[in-house]
């Protein structure tokens, strides 16, 4: 039978405010469609040739009327703009305490890794009421992370990190789609977001034994790829210590000048894959490129490790 909910669930903190704007737009659209639709029919019937109506002085132009039908859409448009812009900014900046989760898209699955170490495929478990920030990248073509119930969608690009945040407000299972067409099996690239009570989430995280966290895994990879050989107290090579780097401004040698960039995930990613593109001031460009040698998932773990060092003090 008719089991068609007109709108997807509202399950995130954004959903209801976006829907409010959406309903406003519907109201405007329906109002104008009806007014104009009626006008078309009335004019067509009333002024059909052969009908006997008063046609004296049919207007052929009117500055006054033009002004009115510029002004009304202008005002409505600007209301929508202001409203939309506020929401748009809101959706961009995650709150500081957001739970961080890494996402890697590839043809045709989602690989999801929690900071605490648990990884999953095509499923995302998160606690209700807690803001979640996804750091996403793709291993091949462009994908797009789309959860209709949260009203969020963000393209996932190869060679770059994009991020997305939301705050689930209702426990339940919600569909997850890949919204950007990505090849043959695009239509089956999806999964579920499972929003759990915080306690259940904690239990889920440690289910099946508490494996190493992402940062611990990263520390292992840091050794395995011989990063440590240079970056930890080497006597032969001069390389910067990575403690405290994350989130701080880093001096970059720029010809004769020095400029500062903030060491965010994109910067650290670039430092590993393209070390010569931004060389830390005072160091030789001797770090080899790890491009093609570290997978996207491992890269995220190494970055998690470097992030985990940020609490510690740098010995620069």
């Amino acid at each position: 039978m008719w089991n068609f909910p007109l709108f997807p669930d509202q399950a995130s903190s954004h959903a209801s405010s976006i829907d409010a704007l959406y309903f406003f737009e519907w109201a405007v659209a329906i109002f104008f469609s009806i007014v104009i639709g009626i006008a078309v029919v009335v004019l067509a019937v009333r002024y059909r040739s052969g009908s006997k109506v008063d046609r004296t002085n049919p207007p052929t132009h009117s500055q006054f009327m033009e002004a009115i039908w510029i002004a009304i859409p202008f005002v409505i448009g600007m209301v929508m703009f202001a409203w939309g812009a506020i929401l748009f900014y809101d959706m961009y900046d995650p709150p500081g305490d957001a739970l961080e989760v890494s996402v890697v898209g590839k043809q045709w699955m989602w690989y999801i890794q929690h900071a605490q170490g648990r990884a999953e495929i095509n499923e995302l478990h998160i606690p209700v009421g807690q803001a979640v920030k996804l750091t996403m990248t793709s291993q091949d073509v462009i994908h797009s992370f789309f959860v209709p119930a949260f009203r969020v969608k963000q393209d996932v690009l190869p060679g770059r990190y994009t991020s997305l945040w939301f705050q689930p407000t209702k426990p339940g299972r919600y569909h997850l789609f890949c919204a950007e067409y990505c090849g043959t099996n695009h239509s089956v690239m999806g999964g579920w977001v499972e929003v759990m009570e915080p306690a259940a989430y904690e239990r889920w995280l440690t289910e099946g034994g508490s494996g190493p966290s992402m940062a611990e895994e990263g520390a292992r990879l840091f050794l395995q790829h011989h990063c440590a050989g240079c970056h930890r107290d080497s006597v032969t090579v001069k390389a910067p210590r990575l403690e405290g780097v994350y989130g701080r401004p880093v001096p970059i040698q720029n010809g004769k000048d020095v400029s500062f960039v903030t060491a965010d995930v994109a910067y650290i990613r670039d430092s590993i894959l393209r070390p010569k593109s931004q060389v830390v001031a005072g160091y030789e460009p001797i770090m080899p490129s790890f491009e093609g040698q570290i997978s996207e998932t491992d890269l995220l773990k190494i970055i998690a490790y470097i992030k985990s060092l940020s609490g510690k003090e740098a010995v620069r």
Partner: protein
Amino acid sequence: MHEPESHEGAPGVTAPGPESDPGHDHIHPAPGWFLTRYIFASDHKVIGIQFLFSGLIFFLVGGMLAMALRWQLAWPWKPMPILSRLLWAEPSLGYQMPPEFYNKLFTMHATIMIFFVIIPLLTGGFGNFLIPLMIGARDMAFPKLNMLSYWFMPPAMVLITYSFFVEGGSAEAGWTSYPPLAFARWATPGSLNGQTLWLLSLLFAGISSILGSINYITTIVMLRAPGMKLFRMPMTVWAMFITAILQAFALPVLTSALIMQTLDRVAGTNFFSPVGLTVANAPPVVGGGGPILYQHLFWFYSHPAVYVMILPAMGMVSDIIATFSRKPLFGYKPMVCAIAGIAGLGFIVWGHHMFQSGMNPALGATFMMSTMLIALPSAIKVFNWLGTMWGGRIQFTAAMLNAVGFVSMFIIGGLSGIFMAASPVDIHIHDTYFIVGHIHYVLFGGSTFAIFAAIHYWFPKIFGRMMNERLGMIHFFLTFIFFNGTFYLMHIVGMHGHPRRIADPTVYSYLQGAGVIGMNQFMTVNAFLLGFTQLIFVFNFLYSLAAGPKASENPWHANTLEWTTSSPPAHYNFERIPVVLHAPYEYSVPGVDEDFLPQTKPFPGGQRLEPAHS
């Protein structure tokens, strides 16, 4: 402008006299040889007809691809009549459409409809045929260039058709063809050879349009008949003029993007591949390019391109509504300004296709603002069409019905555009069926209804015979009903979260509700009915071509110049170059016996105020 002006004293108009008679220009005889007359023709009318026929043929092809798409959406993986037996009889396929075939279908449907149907029909077909006739010229400024512009199309058509038959089949990266999916050779079967052919084909089609647009601009600037001041040009000519400018500025960007992507595919360049990219276990490329760069280049062209597909339609509809309302076009100058405004804004809104690509909100908000502003000139157009009908004496011919259909459907398309202009809402509905609904309300409800209107209206002039009005009306009403049946519900399922470009919605329990499945099936049934309704049009077109009643010079009692010459016009268009005396919309002028006054016919009394279309 209210200054009095006699038709003889108009600037640029000299009284027709023996020494300055503009009719005494050089008339070329029509080429006698069949090949130069009908095939390698340089006559703008023949070229227009060539574009018209090739566009209509591809319209049928594109329509059939669409019906196959709809079949799969309503009854996923169920054997399809005809195609299943023909293509998927092998046991491994079991009469089911493979998913990559579905992907080819939507890629090629959109490519064909946009680049081989709507754009060639509007600018190539009607632009070519109408511009010289409506401004009183004997031909385009560069007839040979015009011929070249048509002859860039057949290679494009051959390549795109041939691409269905190469190894791996046709392209399947979507009409937007985003890298890396589009250039990574092994990303999809279709990116083997099909994608390269797709790129080459579009390059040819684009060059055809660039050549055409140069010609249109020059012709309209240089070859207007004496007295045809800019603000006496019919809206169709204004629209074609501004469209040509759009094409001339936007197409080079698409051309470069296509060339870069071609090089990325065949020459190992890395314009659009990120560092170390590897797709489907292929060895990594060097990279260093940006996939987002392509999106910017593509939409910098393709947003203006959507206006290339609607402005000529708006121009022609304006002329048709004025003619059949027997009333001057309401607010002629605001209408011209609105077209120019849409075109100008059209260059600064492309980012609205990329709100979810991770752009900075400051940039997103800027694009949101410019997109909202496009609603203003669009509103001007709609209300002025209504103003034209107000107080008119409306004749409901098939052409007029289609034109009114255009107005009412364009409103829905424009209003759904506003939804998507607001970026937070767009982030939810982007890449869902809501977008597909929008596209079709503007491109089918808008452009295609306008093309039907224009064909019914100018058929007598083009072919010298009348189309059957009754069949035309039946075709209109059925098309109108089934069109809405097919596309309206797309907004609803889109809002619900139904993604676009998916071969099988039923893999998601979310889209398995009877509501969604029922709607999908309802839309498909309507789509098939819509498709079959077009057979009425095909019949009417072909039958009238062969046996329609002979058309008189001016069957609709219209004012513009093309109706002052024979139907069909002779090779040289006008016996003598006409002298234009006033604006094109002098219908039901008090003091004139008939309810129309062709642009070449003086006002009774000789003197008269220039009509004040403020």
